[in-house]
C-alpha cells in the first residue's frame, strides 16, 4: 500500500484527548485501547491476506477511530526516537533500529503518519522505539509520543504539489521545538532551514554532516537577505549562522560527542555517512554502546529494498530510490562514470507528487556517457529531460527487448516506481 503523505495532520489539540483518558474514564479508555489494538492487528492481517497492501495504514486508521488517543497510550513509558526530514528518513531510522540492538518497534514499511506509527507500536511491545515521521506530521506525532530524541536530517523541495512551502514546515518545527523542553534534538548544522527550526530548542546536538543541497535555503529564514556559504560554513547579515557543532564527519573519522568512530558503511554515498552520523548521535542519547552500534550500522547493506541486489528476467539489478532533486542528485553522484547502462523509472502518482517539474532540478547532465533506459508512467518526461541534457536515452516500450548484461544494472526510481520494481523483482 502506498501510504506516504495522503493527507495532512489534523488541526485538533493533543490535550483534548488527554483529558478523556484520566479519572473515571480510565477503565473505559483502557478497554477501548485493547479493542483498538486487536482491531489494528486484525484489520492489518485481513489487508495483507486480501493483498490490498502491506497492511499498516488501514489497521492503524481503524484503531484510531476506536481510540483516538491510541498513539499517546502506546508510546507512554517507552524510549522513543523520531526521525524526520526530506531525505534519509527510512535509512536513518533503519540505522537507529539496527544500531540499537535487540528488539525495536519501528515503522520499517515507510508508513510514517499517525496510522502507520500506531500499527508499528501495536506490532511490537519493545521498549525501544525508532519511528520515521512525515515532515508535516512531526508536531502532531512528537506531542503525542513525547520522544527522548528527535533527529532532524534536512529540508528541501519535495512533492511540490502538496507541501508547497518548505519554509512553512520549518516554522511548524520551530514552534514545536520551542515548546518541547525535555527532548534532545539531533540536528543537521549544515542545513540553515533545519537550524532555523531547531535553534529555540533547549537541548540540541548539532551535527556537521555532508549536505550538498542548500538550494532551498538561499535567503535567510530570519531577515530574507542572502545567506553566504563559505568554506563549509554559512551566515547571514543579521547574525544567524551555522552553530557550533558537536558531531562531525569533517572529511576524516566520525566523532560523536568526543568518541571517534570508524565509519565503514556497506551502504553507498556521502548522504549515507550523514545518515549514519545522525543515527549514531541519536543512539548516544538513549544510552546505547556506540562501538557495538557502529558495527551493526556498518554491516547494514540494504534498507527496505533500497540498494539491494535483485533479479528480473535474467537481469541483475540494484534498486536505488531517488524521489526528489536532493535525493536524486546524491544518488547520481554514487554512480561510477563507467558508461554502464542505467535504468530510470519515473511516475507522478499521488504518493510521488503529481508534478514532475522537479526533473529539471536534477543534474541529469551527470549521466552523459551512459545510456539511460526510460521507464514508468512519465518516461517521456524523463526522456525529454535527458534529451535536453544531451544524454543518450531509450524510451522503453517493449521490456522483452532489453539487452541483458552480465553486470549489475543500477535502477533509479522514484517512490511508486520503486515500489513497482521492488514488487516485480526477486532478491538475488
Amino acid at each position, binding site marked *: 500500500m502506498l501510504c506516504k503523505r495522503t493527507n495532512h495532520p489534523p488541526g485538533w489539540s493533543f490535550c483534548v484527548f488527554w483529558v478523556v483518558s484520566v479519572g473515571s474514564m480510565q477503565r473505559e479508555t483502557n478497554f477501548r485501547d485493547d479493542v483498538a489494538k486487536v482491531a489494528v492487528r486484525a484489520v492489518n492481517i485481513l489487508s495483507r491476506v486480501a493483498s490490498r497492501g502491506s497492511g499498516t495504514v488501514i489497521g492503524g486508521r481503524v484503531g484510531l477511530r476506536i481510540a483516538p488517543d491510541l498513539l499517546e497510550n502506546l508510546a507512554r513509558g517507552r524510549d522513543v526516537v523520531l526521525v524526520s526530514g526530506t531525505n534519509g528518513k527510512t535509512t536513518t531510522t533503519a540505522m537507529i533500529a539496527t544500531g540499537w540492538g535487540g528488539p525495536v518497534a519501528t515503522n520499517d514499511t515507510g508508513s510514517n503518519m499517525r496510522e502507520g506509527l500506531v500499527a508499528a507500536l501495536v506490532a511490537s511491545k519493545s521498549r525501544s522505539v525508532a519511528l520515521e515521521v512525515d515532515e508535516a506530521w512531526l508536531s502532531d506525532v512528537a506531542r503525542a509520543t513525547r520522544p527522548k530524541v528527535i533527529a532532524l536530517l534536512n529540508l528541501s*523541495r519535495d512533492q*511540490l*504539489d*502538496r507541501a*508547497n*512551502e*518548505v*519554509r512553512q514546515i520549518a516554522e511548524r518545527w520551530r514552534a514545536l521545538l520551542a515548546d518541547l523542553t525535555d527532548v534532545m534534538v539531533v540536528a543537521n548544522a549544515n542545513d540553515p532551514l533545519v537550524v532555523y527550526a531547531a535553534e529555540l530548542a533547549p537541548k540540541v546536538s548539532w551535527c556537521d554532516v555532508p549536505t550538498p543541497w542548500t*538550494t532551498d535555503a*538561499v*535567503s535567510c*529564514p530570519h531577515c*530574507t*537577505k*542572502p545567506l553566504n556559504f563559505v568554506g563549509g560554513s554559512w551566515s547571514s547579515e543579521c547574525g544567524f549562522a551555522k552553530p557550533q557543532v558537536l558531531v562531525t564527519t569533517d572529511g576524516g573519522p566520525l566523532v560523536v560527542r568526543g568518541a571517534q568512530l570508524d565509519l565503514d558503511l556497506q551502504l553507498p554515498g556521502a548522504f549515507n555517512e550523514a545518515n549514519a552520523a545522525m543515527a549514531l548521535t541519536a543512539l548516544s542519547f538513549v544510552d546505547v554502546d556506540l562501538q557495538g552500534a557502529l558495527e551493526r550500522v556498518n554491516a547494514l547493506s540494504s534498507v527496505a529494498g533500497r540498494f539491494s541486489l535483485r533479479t528480473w528476467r535474467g537481469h541483475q539489478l540494484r534498486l536505488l530510490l531517488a524521489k526528489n*532533486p536532493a535525493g536524486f542528485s546524491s544518488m547520481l553522484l554514487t554512480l561510477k562514470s563507467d558508461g554502464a547502462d542505467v535504468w530510470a523509472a519515473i511516475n507522478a502518482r499521488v504518493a510521488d507528487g*503529481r*508534478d514532475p*517539474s*522537479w*526533473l*529539471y*532540478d536534477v543534474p541529469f547532465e551527470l549521466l552523459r556517457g551512459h545510456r539511460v533506459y526510460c521507464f514508468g508512467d512519465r518516461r*517521456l*518526461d524523463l*526522456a*525529454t*529531460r535527458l*534529451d*535536453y*541534457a*544531451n544524454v543518450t*536515452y531509450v*524510451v522503453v516500450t517493449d521490456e522483452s527487448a532489453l539487452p541483458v548484461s552480465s553486470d549489475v544494472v543500477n535502477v533509479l526510481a522514484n517512490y511508486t516506481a520503486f515500489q513497482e520494481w521492488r514488487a516485480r523483482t526477486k532478491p538475488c
Partner: protein
Amino acid sequence: MASEDEAVLTIALIYPELLGTYGDGGNALVLAERARRRGFEAEVVNVGIDDEVPDAAIYLLGGGEDGPQRLGADLLRASSFAARVRDGNFVFAVCAGLQLLGTTFCVEGNDEYEGLGLVDASTARGETRSVGELVVRVDGRALVGFENHGGRTTLGADVEALGAVEVGKGNDGAIDGFRTPGVWATYAHGPVLAMNPWFADKVLARALGRELEPLVTIADQLYDERVTSLAR
C-alpha cells in the same frame, strides 16, 4: 541556419535561487538547446542575487515561495530590469514571476505588495490554492502544464490574456497569464517550455525576432501524450 555574423542569443535566468522552485530553470535549457540545434549560438546567464541584470534577448522569471518572491521583487525594483524591458527586452515569466511583473501581489502578511508595474495586472489572494494540471488554449493550440499558486490575477482592460483556461484555474478559472508586446506570462510553472515544444518555439522566435524552421524532438511525443491524457 543562422548566418556567420549572428550574435549570441543571451538567455538571462533571473535569480534562479529565488525564483526557481519548480524546476523553472528548465525553460532556459529548453530555449538554449532548441536554438543551438538550429545552428544559433546560445548562452544561458544565471543572474544571481548579487549580480547586475545584464542585457539579454530574453529574461526568464520562475516561481518562488513568498519570502523569496518578495526579495526577488525588491531586488528587481532596485535594478535596471524594468528600464531594460521598457526599452524592448523580452520577458517570459511563470507563476510568482507573473505576479511580480504586475502592479500588486500578495505576500506573507501583505495583501498589496508593490510589483514592478510592467503590466496592468493585480493579484489578490485566491479563496483556495490552485494546484493541478493546467490546460490553456493559446492561438488555437493547447498549452499543457502544472500550476501551484494561491493567487487570483485580474488584468487591466487593455491587457490581453495568454489564452482561455480549459483545465485548471490560471488567473481566475477563465483566462490564464497575459501577453503584451514585451512580456508573456503563464501560471503553468516549471519547465512548461519542455512540455510544449511548439510554444517554446514561439517564445524563441519572438526572442530571436525571426521565423524558425520546424525541429523534431522527443518533446513532440511528450506533448502529444500529455494532450491525449488530459483530454480523457
